[in-house]
């Protein structure tokens, strides 16, 4: 059967299990939109307000359900508007398929209207990219794109699709599995032996989880290892939600704004088993201090991460779930009462810094939201102080319920990502914690949330400033607050209403409680603007490049 390139694309998307696409139409992609109209019973298209919202939504979708998220945009400005979103997916290893229209192949390279070499622009922020120059390659390219995005260490793949190829006719043959997939690496017996010996010899073992644990759903395996070793678990920001926070030896986030006990105990451990983590500078601080006097056992799917940021003498490279099972089965039970006592002591110390019960403090705000949500609710964040507070105080219990931009730290990520994440689970209840800075960047996607009837609660930690920048300036730039005060008269609740959502402005905990009560009666978007104090910093904080010795607690 001879069909057009645009039709072949849709057939292939359906074959690869795509049920939802996020995007925005335009001149060079109108053929695909024509086909989407005809297949709207099989693929739902979510029209956003801006391509950036669409790409964050596709990323959020992928992070929430593990399947590849798909975003569609036109050439030129449509394509360049995807760049931040592709970079966010790349940094956090999220499986994203970005499909861009382009001018006809005969017009390429001539600075045609809305022509951009998007392959060139995105080259260093994709796992791979394709331009479809021959219709006969199309089905195979789509197939490869999905395989690349969702295999090994996941990541974004871009398909640039010139308009004449979308229109070309071709005898369509569904894509076939090409060569058998290369098996991921397996650690050797001697690698396991080295790891087992190091773990046996350790007195104070510590398990440190990164985003790989969430991606691989390896929480159970991590807990089995932790149980056997009686080792505490700390997590990088991307690792949060990977293991339930209810686990007795769970310490929470480590790193620059990590919790006191999690960081301190990490610095006292004689062995760190790092699982699915890449040792970002925000997670390690000073690398020399991080590795000093301790053995690192690094478990990761990506061989290039071994010895990239941290030199680990012992590495187990491959599927982390499988490796954890093998490793745990080779180990005997461990029990060091002194280490356990020390863990208890550090946590007790940490608990003494609770916010006052009725204060309108981020900690209480987050706890109150948690009381209204069940463990399944998806929590998305933007980037800034509010993000750090969520990481510190929200007790995550299920994997993939946290959607946040870690590696790239892209302000404006949250709203689009929250919409995508909710849709990945048939409009699941989703809470977006954001700040007045981040929310201001992409709040236009409220239009999308309203039209899609997303049961979305947006909680703005509104302190009238760019809090993390302000904090850096206050601490390290002698209080020279250059451009970090916003103090804008924007009425976010009014903005929400203008978009057709509900909006509340609150400045005390009882008011917030009442607004939450109202919000949870609805299944549509609600924005609650929380006017919080400017004095509250995101603490603890380990200054960039420093270690636990320099931790700022007050």
């Amino acid at each position: 059967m001879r069909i057009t390139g645009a039709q072949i694309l849709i057939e292939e998307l359906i074959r690869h299990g795509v049920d939802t696409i996020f995007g925005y139409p335009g001149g060079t992609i109108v053929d695909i939109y024509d086909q989407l109209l005809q297949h709207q019973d099989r693929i739902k298209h979510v029209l956003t307000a801006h391509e950036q919202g669409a790409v964050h939504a596709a990323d959020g979708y992928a992070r929430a359900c593990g399947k590849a998220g798909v975003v569609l945009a036109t050439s030129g400005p449509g394509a360049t508007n995807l760049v931040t979103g592709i970079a966010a997916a790349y940094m956090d290893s999220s499986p994203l398929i970005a499909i861009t229209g382009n001018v006809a192949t005969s017009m390429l390279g001539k600075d045609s209207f809305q022509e951009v070499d998007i392959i060139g622009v995105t080259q260093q922020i994709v796992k791979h990219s394709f331009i479809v120059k021959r219709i006969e390659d199309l089905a195979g390219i789509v197939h490869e794109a999905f395989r690349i995005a969702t295999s090994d260490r996941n990541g974004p793949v871009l398909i640039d699709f010139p308009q004449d190829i979308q229109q070309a006719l071709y005898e369509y043959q569904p894509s076939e599995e090409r060569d058998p997939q290369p098996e991921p690496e397996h650690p050797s017996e001697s690698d396991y032996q080295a790891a087992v010996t190091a773990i046996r010899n350790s007195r104070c073992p510590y398990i440190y989880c990164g985003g790989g644990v969430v991606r691989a759903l390896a929480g159970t395996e991590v807990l089995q290892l932790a149980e056997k070793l009686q080792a505490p678990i700390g997590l990088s920001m991307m690792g949060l939600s990977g293991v339930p926070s209810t686990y007795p030896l769970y310490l929470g986030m480590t790193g620059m704004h990590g919790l006191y006990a999690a960081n301190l105990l990490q610095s006292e451990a004689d062995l760190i088993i790092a699982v699915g983590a890449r040792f970002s500078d925000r997670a390690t601080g000073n690398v020399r201090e991080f590795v000093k006097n301790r053995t690192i056992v690094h478990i990761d799917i990506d061989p290039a991460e071994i010895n990239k940021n941290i030199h680990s003498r012992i590495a187990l490279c491959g599927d982390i779930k499988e490796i954890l099972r093998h490793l745990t089965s080779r180990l005997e039970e461990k029990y060091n009462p002194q280490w356990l006592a020390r863990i208890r002591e550090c946590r007790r110390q940490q608990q003494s810094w609770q916010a006052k019960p009725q204060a309108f403090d981020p900690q209480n705000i987050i706890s109150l939201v948690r009381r209204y949500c069940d463990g399944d609710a998806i929590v998305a964040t933007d980037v800034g102080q509010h993000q750090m507070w969520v990481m510190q105080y929200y007790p995550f219990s299920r994997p993939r319920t946290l959607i946040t931009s870690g590696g790239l730290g892209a302000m404006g990520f949250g709203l689009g990502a929250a919409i995508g994440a909710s849709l990945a689970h048939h409009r699941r209840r989703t809470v977006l914690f954001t700040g007045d800075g981040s929310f201001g960047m992409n709040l236009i996607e409220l239009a999308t949330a309203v039209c899609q009837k997303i049961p979305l609660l947006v909680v703005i930690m509104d302190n009238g400033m760019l809090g993390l920048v302000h904090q850096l300036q206050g601490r390290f730039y002698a209080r020279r607050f250059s451009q970090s005060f916003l103090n804008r008269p924007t009425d976010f609740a009014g903005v929400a209403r203008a978009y057709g959502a509900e909006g509340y402005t609150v400045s005390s905990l009882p008011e917030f409680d009442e607004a939450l009560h109202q919000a949870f009666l609805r299944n549509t978007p609600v924005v609650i603007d929380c006017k919080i104090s400017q004095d509250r910093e995101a603490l603890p904080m380990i200054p960039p490049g420093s270690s636990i010795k320099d931790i700022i607690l007050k």
Partner: protein
Amino acid sequence: MEEKFTVGMIVNNQAGVLNRVAGLFGKRCYNIDSITVGETENQQYSRMTIVSRGDEYTREQVLKQLSKLYDVKKVCLLPEESAISREHLLIKMHIPAEMKAKATEMINSFGGKILDFWDDCVTVEITDSTQMIDEFIHLAARIGILEICRSGCIAMVQGKESPLTVTDL
């Protein structure tokens, strides 16, 4: 310690592949001393040789990061002691009459071939190791260089082993 090292690769013979490889070096701040690309006996694949500099850490990362590129099918280090490496030089020299005998002797001693000559000007080709080519250029500079063009290094493992064959792809 920073050292020169040579990496051989088999890559897909497609537009944009050189860009991806060079872009990776740029992004990760690795050096490229020279880079050469040419088709293999199988038109689907090209062979690339890159000469780079760096310590053991860089060397390990270069190999691992290159291996992750979709278009890179094979990659391996070509150690100096066990690889044959060659570079091609075209050099145009100005040779004053009184230097002619000395220059001819020098060119011959490097196995050079005179491709073209005009009055006091010759174009010579030499194929040798990078080190010998450097040495020839050094000596030629004393006579008079008008223009040089170097191919960059190509290399292959000695003996029966052929880690970069394309016959098994």
